[in-house]
Every structure is written in structure tokens, then in C-alpha cells.
């Protein structure tokens, strides 16, 4: 769905994005992560056809960006990190303007507007002035207007920045709903927890380059080198003893103690893991819980940082 080759953008001699080769398949919800200044916004703007690359090629859903910007804008929706709105318009007029600007058919316009208002939970604010909306509502309104032409690809740049916890949860749910509708989503953030719950793949950027990319489960598998397991004990002393025990066992790697918690990687069948559980429970009376841990984008990012990003 989204592919780039040798994508490079320099601001004078400063490389914002350098030699980026990417592929994001259709239907993915891809997290674009990296520290501030990693080149995430520049990359998203180039993918949205808003910034001319210095060199390299981009193709989104078969459309070559740069050659046919109007065709691209039919299939790509972009929500920028910072934006302004037409505060003097009502929410309905605001959406009506963008529906017409994006050539939404006249007979289905009303339905589409109601649909995106419902999806973004703004139906009650239909007749409110845009200027009177809260930060979170404005963010949702921009997403609503972006969804009007039903884009195949949605690019979200730091969509949760400045939102309160409640608004973040709503936004997360909204992204999940969009993903369920089959939209390919590329969402950038430097706050990894935001992305952990709904991303299926990840692109990690560092200093304008892609440090690592791929599906999260594959990366987890690759990075963990086995099944990540967490054991929680009653106290730190017990945890230290357990770690000592684990280090002596075969098939156990990367044992890490943090307070009363012990994380480790287990190489072996699930039956062997069950046997290990039984043995540890018998040997360590303070063992409270023992479970397979689900790795998140954060784990991938941190592991990637340790291994690849210098």
C-alpha cells in the first residue's frame, strides 16, 4: 500500500529523512516511532504529498506521489500534528466545506457527514461553532473531516499530543474502529504507550533513517529470541533468589530483576514452560504469579535501540 525507495529529504544540508525504503501493506496499523527530530513528520508530509522529497520515490496505493498529487489526495488522509481551524464556521458547515472540497457526492453528503460525526462522537456538537470546541474535540473534528472522502490510507501525526487521558482513550478506540474498517493507518508518536494497543506493525526512526521496521509479532519473536515470561514474587529478596535459580537452568535467557518482578526469555515448548512453572512454584514459596508477557511497541523500540541505534 505504501512503499518508498531511497526517500531522502534535506533541509539545506541537514538530512531530515535519509535513504528510507519502506513497505506498509494494506490494512496495517503501523506505528511510526522515534525520538523528537527523528524525521517522522517530514516522512509523513512527503507521504501525504505536502513536501517535495530531495530525492527518492514514493508510491501510495499505486499512485506515484509527486506526479499526481490530486489523485494521491483522493486516497490519502492526513492529520497534521499542529493545525488551525475555521473557528467562525459551525461544525456542520466545516464538514460540508471539506466534503465538497473532497468531491463527496452531493446525494450522500449528508449521510457521510452524520457518519463521521457519529464515528468521532461529535454528533451532539453538529451546530456548535468550531471555535468553541475543546482541544480533544478539535482533534476529532479534523479526523472527521479527513475521513469524509473515506481515504484508503490515513496518516496521523502525533494525534494524541495535547489530549487529556479521556480524549486519548477515545482516540485510541477511534483508531481501532478505523482499522477494523480496513483503512491502512500510519500513526506517529514519540509516546510509545499510545501506540502499544492498536499497532500491528512498527517503523522505528532514528536520525532520519529507519532503524527497524516490520510486524510487531515478528519483531518481538526476533528480538526476544523465545517466549517472554514474567514472574512476580512477594519481595525483592525472593526475586533475587528466583533469578539465581533461573540463570542456572537451561533454555532460560535474559533474566532481568526489577524489584519483586523477574523477566526472562524461555526457549522451549509450552509443556516445558508449564513444567518450569511447577518447579519454580514448588521451590519458591513467594511466587505470586507466572505468565507469558505480551511484548509491546515499547519493548521493540527499546530492544531495537539497544541493539541497532547508536
Amino acid at each position, binding site marked *: 500500500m505504501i512503499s518508498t525507495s531511497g526517500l531522502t529529504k*534535506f533541509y*539545506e544540508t541537514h538530512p531530515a529523512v535519509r535513504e528510507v525504503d519502506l513497505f506498509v501493506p494494506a490494512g496495517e496499523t503501523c506505528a511510526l516511532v522515534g525520538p523528537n527530530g527523528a524525521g517522522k513528520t517530514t516522512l509523513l508530509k512527503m507521504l501525504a504529498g*505536502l513536501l517535495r522529497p530531495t*530525492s527518492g520515490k514514493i508510491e501510495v496505493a499505486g499512485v506515484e506521489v509527486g506526479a499526481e*498529487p490530486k489523485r494521491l*489526495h483522493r486516497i490519502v488522509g*492526513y492529520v497534521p500534528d499542529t493545525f*488551525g481551524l475555521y473557528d467562525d464556521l459551525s461544525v456542520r458547515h466545516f464538514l460540508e*466545506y471539506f466534503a*465538497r472540497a473532497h468531491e463527496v457526492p452531493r446525494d450522500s453528503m449528508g449521510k457521510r457527514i452524520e457518519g463521521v460525526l457519529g464515528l468521532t462522537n461529535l454528533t451532539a456538537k453538529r451546530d456548535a461553532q468550531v471555535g468553541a470546541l475543546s482541544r480533544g474535540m478539535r482533534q476529532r473534528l479534523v479526523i472527521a473531516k479527513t475521513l469524509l472522502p473515506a481515504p484508503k490510507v490515513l496518516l496521523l501525526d502525533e494525534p494524541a499530543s495535547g489530549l487529556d487521558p479521556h480524549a486519548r482513550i477515545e482516540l485510541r478506540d477511534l483508531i481501532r474502529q478505523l482499522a477494523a474498517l480496513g483503512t491502512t493507518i500510519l500513526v506517529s508518536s514519540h509516546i510509545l504507550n499510545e501506540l502499544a494497543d492498536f499497532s500491528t506493525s512498527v517503523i522505528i526512526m532514528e536520525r532520519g533513517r529507519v532503524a527497524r521496521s516490520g510486524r510487531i509479532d515478528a519483531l518481538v519473536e526476533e528480538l526476544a529470541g523465545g517466549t517472554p515470561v514474567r514472574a512476580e514474587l512477594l519481595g525483592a529478596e525472593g526475586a533475587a533468589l528466583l533469578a539465581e535459580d533461573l540463570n542456572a537452568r537451561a533454555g532460560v535467557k535474559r533474566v532481568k530483576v526489577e524489584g519483586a518482578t523477574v523477566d526472562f526469555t524461555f526457549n522451549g515448548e509450552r509443556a516445558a514452560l508449564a513444567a518450569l512453572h511447577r518447579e519454580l512454584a514448588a521451590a519458591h514459596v513467594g511466587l505470586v504469579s507466572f505468565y507469558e508477557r505480551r511484548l509491546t511497541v515499547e519493548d521493540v523500540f527499546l530492544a531495537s535501540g539497544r541493539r541497532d541505534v547508536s
Partner: protein
Amino acid sequence: MAWNPSLSLNPEFVRVLRTTLPRRRALFVAGLTVVLLAAGAWVVWSRSAPPSYVYGHFKGDLDAMPDPADLWARQVRNFGSESYGVLSVLLFALLFVLGPALAGLSLVQERLRGTAIFQQMSLLSPFRLASGKFWGAGALAYFVALLLLPCALAAAWLGGVDSDKVWRLYLFLLVGGFAWQALGLYASAALCGSSGRAPRGGLLVGPLVAVGGAVTALALNSVFTADYAEMARRLAEFAASGRGIEDYLYRSYQSYWWHFYGARIPAYAVVLGLVSFAGLWAFAGAVRRVKAWQLIPLKPGAAWLFFGSACAIVTGLLWGRHFDDEVPATRLEIYMLLCWAGVAALAGESALTRARLREWWSAEPGPVALLQRAEIKASINSILVAAGCSLAGLFALWFSYHVDPLGNRPEYNLGTQFLPVALCFALTLSATVAFVQLCAMYRFRLGGWAGVALLICVYAFAGVAGALLEKPDNTAALFNPLAYAATVTKGDYYLDSAYDALQWSYEPAEGRYRSVVKAPADYKPHAEPRYDVASAAARGLVVQGGFALLCLAFATLKYRQTRRDMLRDPED
């Protein structure tokens, strides 16, 4: 969905209209206008009473106690003509000042507000986006103007104002207002550029455009209010009878009649044509800017067409020989100056700045790779086309000046001075482009425009130096292609001669000289030059050729140095 008329209109226009003139505001503006109109009418009416024998200035006037019905009629006429004047000023203020100012702010405001990014991604075509902004920005001005216009027309009728003058002035109001609004939109679009940043001092563009519109209205309105029928009648009468005429009057009348490819046209028609041309191209330019802003690839055809049509129009206005006109050499200078300015502007606009070069070299450091870029090829082609159009127009003008309308000199000598003047002009254009490019590679914030500004200083300095020296063919003067053209054509029958129809004649009855219109037998060449024209022509060529080569050499050296420095120390 119920039928909604707004869905049939340009969505950008509807959006701007909803923002600038919502229903309540429109009602308020309409109410306020009506109240102010009524108050203004009351003031003007009370001031329009004709003088009676008590208040009149002319105490000896026997009609000081006129018939009351006549007094009423005179008051109505005074009221009408005065109201027409006031309302016309207001209409000009609306369409020449307010509309253009708002258009000047339209795209700048999108950047400042942070909504430009949504318009960049809009599927509205650049034409629809620009026209929506154009009509939307002027909506407030049009709305009030529509309320005032019937009142102004009624006032003109009451005041007995010549209907020809009214329609001419209001045609100018309409065409000029639209043209300035288009210029405002172009300025706004040009200032926005394609960068994501809000333009520095961007909001100044509105007031600046407004000042431009006001100055144009003040400077040109007399062209439209003159009595052309009366002037034409009197000029024909003077020419036929050979009777005396005041010199200033004759000159003044002549100044209202211009020529286009030899055809005599009233000045207002020419001004209207030029204003329409400027307005149309300003709008086309604004559409192109929006296109560039939306990263839609631009084709150079429009720029070529602009240069071609502009050269054709300027050539038409300066074409051929006419009685009592400037000498052709002066007209050649005007033509060259305009073309030179056009090429300099194009060079300033498309110059490769240090920042762009460094960006491109960072990605592709090969010395020749840069020249393969489509943007650079298009810029080079456009500059070549502009220079080509300029030279073609120069040749056409030269040819038109050598076709003697009197048929006195059948031996047309086309090549006498054309080649050196044209060659010098071409060298100057080359030097201009190279100099502007050279300056663009320095750290000037204005980029290529800094080169244009510096070039003006260089030629102004050379002009002052040339004027201070005693000999007219001094090298400093020859450095300027316009002065060079005047120097090598001095005393030429075709290019430096006059046809003075106005001559002084002694009137014995009046005991003084008066100027009369007479048709002389031939053009009278000005004084022969007191210098060697061939030597001046050669020296001018050497000076201008040397300057062009110098600019080209320095630009090449700077190009190489910039690349070397960038590759050695990219952070510098």
C-alpha cells in the same frame, strides 16, 4: 438532503462568505450602509441649496431672486452631482482598496491560521480555489458596492452627469477593481510560497495592495472622466483650419489619444486593456502559485505565453511613427527597459539559491546531476524564451520605425544600428541573469531578488557617473544599454527625428506669437553627434560584453566554490 443553493456554488467561495459575511453581519452592514447613506444624503442636500441674492457670491447677479421651482431644480442638480462624486469615491474605496486588501490577506491568513495544509490537500482545482478566494475576498466590498451603485447612478442622473463619463468611469471601477483584487491575490499567493512557515510580515501585503489600488484610482481616473468627443472635435477643427491653439491645450488633448499598432485609440481604452491584461495575468499567476503550493508539476507554457503577449502589447503601444510623439529612440529605450525588468524579475524568481543548491547537492553531489533537474531546465527555457520575445519585439519596433509614413525616404536601412543595439541588449540580459544567479548563491535572505536590487544600484551608479562626465559617449554611460541605444542612434533620420506639428506663428492682430497646428513636409532629425558613433558603438559592445563575461565567470566560480565548500563542510 433538501435542496441547498450553497451546494451549487464554489465551496471555497461559500466558506469565505460564511466566515466574512454571515447572515447577521450582512444585515448589520446593510442597515449601517442605509443609515449612513440617509445621513450623508441629508448633509449633501442641505449643502446643495443654490445661492440666492442674500447668500450668493455674485451680488450683481440679476437672477438673485429666481423662481422657487428653478431653485429647487438647481438644488436637485447640485445634490445629484455632488452625491455622484461622493458615492464614486466610496465605490472606488470599496473596489480599489478594500477588495484588493482582503484578497491580499486571503492566502496569507490561511498560513497564519494553520489551515493552509488542508487546502494543500484539497481536491479543489487551483483555479476553483483561487476563484473562490477571489470572489470571497471581495464579497464584503461587492455587497456594499451593490447597495451604493443604484444610488450613485440615480445621483448621476439627477445631477445631469454625462452618461459617457459615467459608464467609462464605472467600467474602470469594475475592471480596475477586479485587476487589483487579482494582484492582491497573486501577492498573497506569492508570499505564501510552498514552505510550511507563516510568511514574515505577511499581513502587510493587504495594506500595500490597498495603497497600490488607491494610487492607481487617483492617478488614472482623469483618463476616464475626460470629454473625448469634445477633444476629438476640437483637434480635428484645429488641424483643418490651422488656427491658433494654446500649446498646453494641444499637448493635453494629444495625451488622451494613444496608438496601438498604428491605430489611434482613446487613452481610456488602452488603460482598460492594460489593466485587464494585468488583472488576467495576475489571476493566472495566482492560480499557478496555488498549483506550485499544492506541489502540482508546473508547465512553463504559461510563462512563455505571458512574455509573448506582454511583448506583443508593449510593441503595439510603441509601434510606428506618429506626429508629435516621442522620438523612436526614446520608445526603444522604454521597450528595452520594460523587457529588461521582466527578464530580471524572472531571473530573480527562478534563481537557484544557496539553500536549494545545498539541498540538492546533499542528496546528489555530482557536478552535472543538478542540471538534469526539471525545475532548472524549465527556468533556463523560460529565460531564453523571455529574452527571445524581447529581441523579437525589438526587431519589430525597429522595423516599424523605418517604415516612413510620409514616404520621403524610400531607402530603408534596417541594419544600421540594429545589430549593435540588439547585441548589447542581449549581452545585458545575459549579464543580468548571471549577476542575479551569482547573488542568489550568497547568504542573502532575499535570494535572487537581492541580485535584482543590487543590479539596479550598479546601473544607477553607472548612470550617475555617466551623466557627470562631459562627453555623452563616455564609457560609464555606454555601460547602460538604454543610454547606448540613444548614443548610437543620435541624429538618425529614422530614430532620432521629430515631426513638430505645433509651430509658432505671429498673430499681428493680437501682437504676439501663438502656436498653430501645421503639417511639416518631413521629419526633422536632431543634431548630428559630435563624437564618432562607430567608436562609441564598439566601446559599448566591449564594456557590456566584458560585464556579461565577468558576471558569468563569477557566477561559475561561485557555483563551484559553493559546491566545494558544501561538500567539505556541510554544516557551514
